[in-house]
């Protein structure tokens, strides 16, 4: 049966160097429930190491947790990868780690804390998660798809790390499943702007078909969780159902962005 499910598909944890240290699994789960979210996706920069802990912590809150990573391409474009299957998720993490040079400097970029479902600190990740991988945006999208995930261009309305800011326009032939608009704007407006952007662009820049747009919070602090979200008409909170909604398949759809 199809249901209206409210989701915030872009939430960081204390693993992201720019994420607040209070972004611990139980606190995130509790805030997500308070905000009336049915599901969240955990999408730290270039890592999925806190996904399982948040999922466990969220079970008792009745909030579903989709595994994700916010991948940084060599062009410094952020792509959200969402998976139902942890095997695909952690294989993507392995590919990222193999192509992510550098070591984190806590003083400069912030701590990268690993935590368990009881909010106990279990370790520190010392990779340069804030850095860029040596993978092109096209390779990242192809890799996500080959591993069974969804690829959504993150915060396309921001100049820094958004695909339009970095690359001028969405490259032709890039098989994105959708685009995400940051909290400060509404996706429906942005969706039409993106279509307008394509329609009015000189020459043959960019793809000819518009991309479905979602909004999410890109939360780095507890209070930001659910500040922006998307309501999907789907059977359950999974990446595969979200994929159907993005493609308007089998009655699934995006109902509202706020």
């Amino acid at each position, binding site marked *: 049966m199809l249901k209206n499910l409210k989701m915030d598909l872009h939430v960081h944890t204390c693993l992201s160097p720019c994420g607040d240290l209070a972004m611990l699994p139980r606190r995130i789960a509790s805030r997500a429930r308070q905000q009336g979210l049915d599901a969240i996706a955990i999408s730290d920069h270039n890592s999925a190491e806190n996904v399982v802990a948040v999922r466990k912590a969220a079970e008792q809150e009745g909030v579903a947790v989709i595994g994700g990573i916010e991948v940084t391409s060599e062009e410094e474009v952020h792509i959200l990868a969402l998976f139902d299957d942890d095997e695909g998720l952690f294989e993507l993490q392995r590919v990222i780690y193999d192509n992510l040079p550098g070591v984190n400097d806590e003083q400069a970029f912030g701590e990268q804390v690993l935590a368990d479902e009881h909010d106990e600190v279990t370790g520190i990740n010392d990779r340069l998660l804030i850095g860029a991988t040596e993978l092109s945006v096209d390779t990242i999208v192809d890799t996500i798809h080959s591993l069974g995930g969804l690829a959504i261009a993150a915060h396309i309305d921001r*100049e820094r790390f958004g695909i339009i800011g*970095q690359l001028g326009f969405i490259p032709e032939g890039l098989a994105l499943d959708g685009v995400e608009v940051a909290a400060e704007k509404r996706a429906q407006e942005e969706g039409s702007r993106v279509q307008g952007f394509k329609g009015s662009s000189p020459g043959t820049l960019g793809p000819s078909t518009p991309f479905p747009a979602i909004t999410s919070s890109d939360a780095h602090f507890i209070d930001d969780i659910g500040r922006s979200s998307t309501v999907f008409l789907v059977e359950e909170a999974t990446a595969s159902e979200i994929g159907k909604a993005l493609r308007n398949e089998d009655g699934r759809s995006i109902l509202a962005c706020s």
Partner: protein
Amino acid sequence: MKLKEIVEKLNLEVATPASDLDRDVSGGYASDLLSDVMANSREGNVWVTMQIHQNIIAVASLKELAGIVVVNGRKPEQKVLAKAEQENIPVMLTGLQAFEIAGRLCELGIRGNTK
């Protein structure tokens, strides 16, 4: 100054041999943010960047830039270079950093755009 003189004087490697280097250079622009290049570069500019994504060719073509200098020893993929030749956009390579090549362009009398 003609682009081909710049290529010779700065010892740039031309990655698109079929493209035409006999064109005037109006000035220079350096940026890796393609939206910024679309907004602020001018026709005839030589563009210094480390971006190698295929979108650089469309941006250079749209803005009618004189050519693209790719820095830090980076090289676009063959399909990008093929597109550049098709659009007649010269792509030149250097092992130097953006700062250094921009300085040398200035020494040759190539200037940034004025408002």
